[in-house]
């Protein structure tokens, strides 16, 4: 009973729309007559300007045709690697007559220079291949056509990741084409255990989706579950990895992200090595990482590249900023409106003075300023970069100052909101910061109703929600709850690398060890003072 109706819905896929043409052609094969083939393709794709259909003669004898989308292929490859060898008979075959039944083998084995070449006879496959940027060569008299992988799309160069910059660490970020992204991962992880499974998702976009994991390390159950969830996605278009995230997350109504995204290949590799699964989508520069726990959102890749003592303190600062951005305005409201006895007397009297001309209660005032801050922030993203930078800083200062002198808000409110906003920028993960920013508003309202008591109630609700969240079965707050000693070393502080000699156990990896503790101890024991001044040969004479 609980699953009423579900079965039915699953069984019925969404309507196929115009691709029905392909569906109709599903079982039709081409014939030996290339004119028929041309007519077929022309009928389906001929409307498009960029479709090139060029007839020629193979070895000067056989009628042939080459078909491709001219903007999706590399013309050099077409001209030199396909057309040229097909037109000129190789020297060792010259003079010989090639019968039609051997032609296919000869072309494949002796003539063509292009490596990625296969035969195909189903019409629907031909269309799909051309759409993807392939090139089709049909020779009159052959029942199969040649399909060449000639896709060449313009892509941007590999840049610094825009949202995850580091001071110390690699400077490469993912770009849109899946192939490049996979190459970026593979060159960091040259291991035979790295498995990349691909599938196509999206009924119309046919986006390629790659699932990466480490064989013999990642828990196979996890890989199975990821694949199962992915295969259930039935949507017309996947334009970014964000589409996939929204389908595979566990709780769709939670403000907290349960899937992490990154545009750093090194981060993907680090997570693969911890035992996570990464999902890449063709056309999206952001890779998804599952399962995700909350602590990942305030960790950065830099935490691990710089020395542990420094980064531990910086991580603590980041955590404080995260808490700030959530509760600071709410606490301010409750102290001003409910419990002014908590702050020192002189300050309280002064604050009362600062607020004396403000017409609104603190909660309304804070809400107004907060909302205008959010608007400003949103506007800054939309504006062209040249204008945006100026607006963000000047805008806040000018509007804040003006609001105070207009008696619209008290100076302390501006300080509080500024601190909060800055605090929310310190959280490395944009989506987590967004969640906390969103939750700030209900907390402010709770503070306006019940004061500190209300803030606490709100926080308890948020905490309980976090505690009940799960990402692929992993409790969201692990390794804090359920407590796990190994994971604690990388929770609030970032322990030295040799402390964290086990992979996080909440991911239940097949292979648990990652640092050989013994060898580190040997390293420690065997260091010598190679350049001790007393051994300095140059100084000994004097």
């Amino acid at each position, binding site marked *: 009973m609980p699953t009423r109706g579900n079965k039915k819905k699953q069984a019925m896929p969404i309507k196929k729309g115009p691709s029905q043409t392909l569906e109709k052609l599903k079982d039709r094969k081409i014939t030996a007559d290339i004119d028929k083939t041309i007519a077929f393709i022309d009928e389906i794709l001929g409307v498009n300007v960029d479709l090139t259909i060029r007839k020629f003669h193979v070895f000067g004898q056989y009628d042939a045709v080459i078909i491709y989308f001219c903007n999706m292929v590399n013309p050099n490859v077409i001209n030199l690697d396909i057309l040229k060898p097909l037109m000129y008979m190789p020297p060792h075959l010259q003079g010989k007559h090639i019968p039609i039944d051997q032609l296919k083998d000869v072309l494949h084995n002796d003539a063509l220079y292009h490596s990625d070449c296969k035969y195909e006879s189903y019409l629907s496959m031909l269309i799909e291949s051309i759409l993807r940027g392939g090139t089709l060569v049909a020779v009159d008299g052959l029942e199969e056509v040649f399909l060449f992988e000639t896709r060449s799309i313009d892509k941007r160069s590999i840049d610094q990741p825009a949202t995850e910059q580091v001071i110390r660490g690699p400077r490469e970020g993912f770009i849109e084409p899946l192939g490049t992204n996979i190459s970026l991962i593979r060159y960091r992880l040259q291991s035979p255990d790295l498995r990349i499974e691909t599938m196509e998702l999206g009924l119309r976009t046919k986006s390629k989706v790659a699932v990466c994991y480490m064989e013999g390390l990642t828990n196979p159950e996890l890989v199975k579950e990821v694949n199962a969830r992915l295969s259930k996605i039935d949507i017309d278009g996947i334009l970014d990895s964000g589409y996939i995230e929204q389908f595979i997350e566990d709780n769709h109504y939670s403000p907290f992200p349960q899937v992490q995204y990154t545009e750093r290949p090194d981060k993907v590799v680090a997570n693969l090595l911890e035992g996570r699964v990464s999902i890449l989508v063709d056309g999206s520069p952001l890779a998804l990482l599952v399962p995700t726990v909350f602590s990942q959102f305030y960790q950065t890749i830099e935490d691990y590249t710089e020395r542990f003592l420094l980064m531990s303190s910086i991580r603590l600062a980041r955590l404080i900023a995260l808490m700030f951005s959530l509760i600071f305005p709410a606490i301010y409201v409750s102290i001003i409106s*409910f419990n002014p006895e908590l702050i020192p*007397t002189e300050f309280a009297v*002064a604050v*009362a*003075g600062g607020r004396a001309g*403000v017409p609104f209660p603190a909660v309304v005032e804070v809400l107004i300023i907060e909302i205008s801050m959010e608007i400003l922030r949103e506007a800054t993203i939309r504006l062209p970069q040249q204008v945006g930078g100026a607006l963000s800083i000047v805008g806040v200062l000018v509007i804040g100052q003006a609001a105070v002198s207009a008696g619209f808000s008290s100076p302390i409110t501006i300080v509080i909101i500024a601190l909060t906003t800055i605090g929310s920028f310190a959280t490395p993960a944009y989506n987590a910061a967004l969640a906390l920013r969103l939750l700030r508003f209900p907390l402010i309202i709770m503070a306006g109703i019940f*004061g500190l008591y209300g803030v606490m109630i709100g926080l308890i609700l948020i905490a309980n929600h976090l505690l009940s969240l799960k990402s692929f079965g992993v409790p969201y707050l692990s390794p804090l709850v359920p407590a796990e000693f190994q994971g604690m070393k990388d929770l609030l502080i970032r322990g030295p690398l040799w402390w964290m000699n086990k992979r996080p156990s909440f991911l239940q990896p097949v292979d648990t060890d990652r640092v050989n503790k013994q060898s580190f101890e040997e390293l420690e024991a065997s260091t010598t003072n190679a350049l001790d001044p007393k051994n300095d040969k140059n100084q000994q004479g004097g």
Partner: protein
Amino acid sequence: MRIKWWIPIVKAICCLCLVVPFLTGCWDRLEIEERAVVLGVSIDAVSSDDANEEEDEVSHISGSIPAPSKGMVRVAVQIALPGRIPLGPGEGGGGKGSAGETVWVIDVVGHSIDDAFMNLQQQVSSKLFFGHLRVIVVSEKLARRGLENVNDYFRRNPEVRRMAWLMVAKGNAIKFMTATPQLERVPALYLMSTLDEGIRMGKFPKDYIGIFWSNVSKKGQEGFLPYVEMKKEQNVGIIGLAYFNDAKMVGATKPLEIAGYLGVKGVNPAGYRVYIQLDGAQESVMTNATHRRSKIKVSIIDNVPQFTIDIAIELNLEAKLNENVKINDPRILQSIEKKQEGLSVLFYSNLIKKTQVKGADIFGFGEYVRAFKPQFWHAHVKTAEGWRSMYKESKFEVKVSLKIRRIGMKAQ
């Protein structure tokens, strides 16, 4: 299986019903600037005849709901004026320095404290807020009449902090509210810091209102309060300890006798200076106590508690009045110590005797009896009254040992 379509609607209605009450909420929201922040309160006893004329009948109507017959009080409050105290340090030349303008002092009369505050609230538009009440001054007259009502009112009010100061003023208490000392922006805070700094400099024991209440409640101890007086230039001086029997003031000590109290209790840091006359009146030196330690032992002899008080004080030599005395000899220091020890024993004993006469055991000797001789306590004392009479008969033996440790930067 048909889905019951009305279930979501019922759920939504239930949610609405729960949420709607909250929208009417913000019951307790009261902005800080809408509160009349009371920083100090003074309470004077007034004769009923004078007061009746100016009294408003707020909490009672003459005749119908009778008011209590106990004498009337005049309550004055110091309310901070928002806007007059600038935010942040200084604010250029704007801060005028005149403290009188930062607060507003108003006074009313009433039959009880609560009644008086009711009358006051009737006059003040904003709600009175006691969360920042730091100083309560009561006049000696009222203190001698009894502070039960003051204690009860402020103890019951959850806004009042236990770290506030309650003090007894010589003369009228309202003077302390209207005074405008120059050091602080807010007069009440100056009054408070006088006492807080006194603790830090070893001039006064910790005696916040909470501690006073605890002492009053204890069976083997009586409460005491700072006894203050208005000096010239609108300044405040601590002129002794006002000691109580239950909630009634029964006497006050001299200022130096505060040192006696601190010595008997062994309170640190120490900070009182005394003259020691050596051979002649000319040859005096002054010493400054730096560290006190005391040990109180109790034994029961003939059904009367006998206390032995061992007081050890470390001193620094601060000044001498003429150059005749040379302080480069340990023997001279020893003789100073001897001299002062003799004086001190007398001094401490006198102080204890003074409180014994009134039956006001501000030192808490009774607590020692209760703690260490529980059988005796149960057999002979039992109650606070019992101890009050027992205290008058108790015997005391004071032993003082003094050590001069340092003589400052001068060699002799």
